């Protein structure tokens, strides 16, 4: 079971969920993201936009220490999650359980629909069938998938359509009861109608979890994100209220050029 850490989240930083300071990410010798500092607030959707290769995905990976899975990726700087430095927590698996991840292409594990969603509770040692049943139904319902799959929970997850599989991976991420949800271009393999459904789901979820969303679609960031960061060539150009970036004043002309589609 995940128990709240008593030392976490002092009241002074309670409305900041994630605090990134001077984060530099390198592959081998080459730094692909340099000196990024930003704060993500509790219960907001935080959008990250920027052209391909600007370091968005690597940034997400560094937040739950998935860089450690790779041989070449290295991270410097600090990331405070609920006030705790993630590089100093002693059980990285518990950290990852509190952070749900949705990948660009849905990765349906080679398991049944039910087992895909029940995996995370099982990893935490939950064996009770009725608790698992309840979790599976709750998470699939929140991911707007329950009605479509409730009669075939024992079918393989990989037999679902692309859009359904992506909602399945969202349900799986939710089964972790995450405090933070990381979405990496979740709509890349999903049709527009399903994308809109997932976006509605995310707006609802904001009440309970903090969401960081990387997207290539600037309009998606505009529709969903409360605040948005613009990454370019391994640098954070600026962070601001999303509407500001699109219509108000920007600190950097490149941001306006990008959101208006003049490059990238």
């Amino acid at each position: 079971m995940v128990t709240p850490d008593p030392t976490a989240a002092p009241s002074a930083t309670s409305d900041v969920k994630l605090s990134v300071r001077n984060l530099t990410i390198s592959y081998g010798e080459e730094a692909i993201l340099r000196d990024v500092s930003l704060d993500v607030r509790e219960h907001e959707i935080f959008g990250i936009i920027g052209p391909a290769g600007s370091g968005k995905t690597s940034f997400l990976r560094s937040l739950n220490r998935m860089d450690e899975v790779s041989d070449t990726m290295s991270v410097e700087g600090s990331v405070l999650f609920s006030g705790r430095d993630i590089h100093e927590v002693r059980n990285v698996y518990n950290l990852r359980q509190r952070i749900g991840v949705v990948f660009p292409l849905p990765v349906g594990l080679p398991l049944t629909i039910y087992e895909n969603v029940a995996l995370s509770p099982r990893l935490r040692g939950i064996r009770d069938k009725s608790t698992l049943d309840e979790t599976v139904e709750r998470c699939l319902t929140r991911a707007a998938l329950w009605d479509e799959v409730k009669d075939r929970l024992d079918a393989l997850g990989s037999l679902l359509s692309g859009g359904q599989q992506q909602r399945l991976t969202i349900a799986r991420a939710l089964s972790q009861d995450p405090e933070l949800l990381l979405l990496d271009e979740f709509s890349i393999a999903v049709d527009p109608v399903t994308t809109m459904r997932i976006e509605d789901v995310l707006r609802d979820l904001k009440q309970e979890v903090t969401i960081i969303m990387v997207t290539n679609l600037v309009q998606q960031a505009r529709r969903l994100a409360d605040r948005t960061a613009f990454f370019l060539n391994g640098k954070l150009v600026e962070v601001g209220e999303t509407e500001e970036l699109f219509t108000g004043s920007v600190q950097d002309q490149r941001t306006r050029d990008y959101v208006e589609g003049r490059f990238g």
Partner: protein
Amino acid sequence: MRRSVGDLDRRGRAWYVDKAVAGLVFIGGISAIVFIIGIFVFITREGWTFVFGTLDFGEFFTSIEWRPTSENDPTYGALALIAGTASVTGLAMLVAVPFSLGAAIFIAEFATGRTREALKVLVELLAAIPSVVWGFIGLAIMNPLIIDLFDVPIGLGVLNSGIILGLMAAPIMTTIAEDALKAVPDGYREAAEAMGATKWQVIRQVVLPAGKNGLMAAVLLGVGRGFGETMAVLMASGHSINLPTSPFDSVRALTATIAAELGDAPRGMEHYQALFTLGIFLFIVTFCINLAADIAVRGVRKG
């Protein structure tokens, strides 16, 4: 420039090369099948008059009396030989399955970079050791070791040949099992790891279930190898006809019997045909095992 309609019929060099390559590849592919059928036809022709004439199936499968050279009453009971092969192969799998699975999991999931490459080369090197060398190890090292350790009069038997055969089969099983684990997409591992699964949980809950058909195929090919192995078993098993009741009993394998006796059996006589009958039996068993392994691997591709 406009090209004339007549060009549509002209066949250039590329067209002929394509047809020629298709033909050559077809011959190559078909020859493998022809050879297999040829081998089967050959061993059946040598043995079939005996199988359907003289041979008593009841005796073959239930009697342990293998006395093909008896002057007045030759008997052909293969039960002890079948039991010998089965017991040695069984013990070999007890040795080889944990070793090869452990090695495959280590190479595929834990080892990285140069360690991984070095281990793979080493395992492939082990797979290339000739069986007679393994037999020699059985005779010269394992035999005195077993005598010393267990205080038995002779160290050649099920235990010795089972361990030798297990060590022999382990490298090839490791290679195939490692391929099966590597075929599991990395996305699965990352997804599970991002959920907070430990390395072992990832392996246990995701990688092994996803690769189970390939792992099954690895074990079955190991069994096939055990059934067919001749020289090492001949040298390490003691080669005496016995229904084994303890791991120290000396046994004789089907393959070793053929290898040891065929040179002395006059061509076309009953003894000669009886040995070919053992060959037919071995062929059918190994064919079934390989077929099962193949079906298991196909399961991987579908699933």
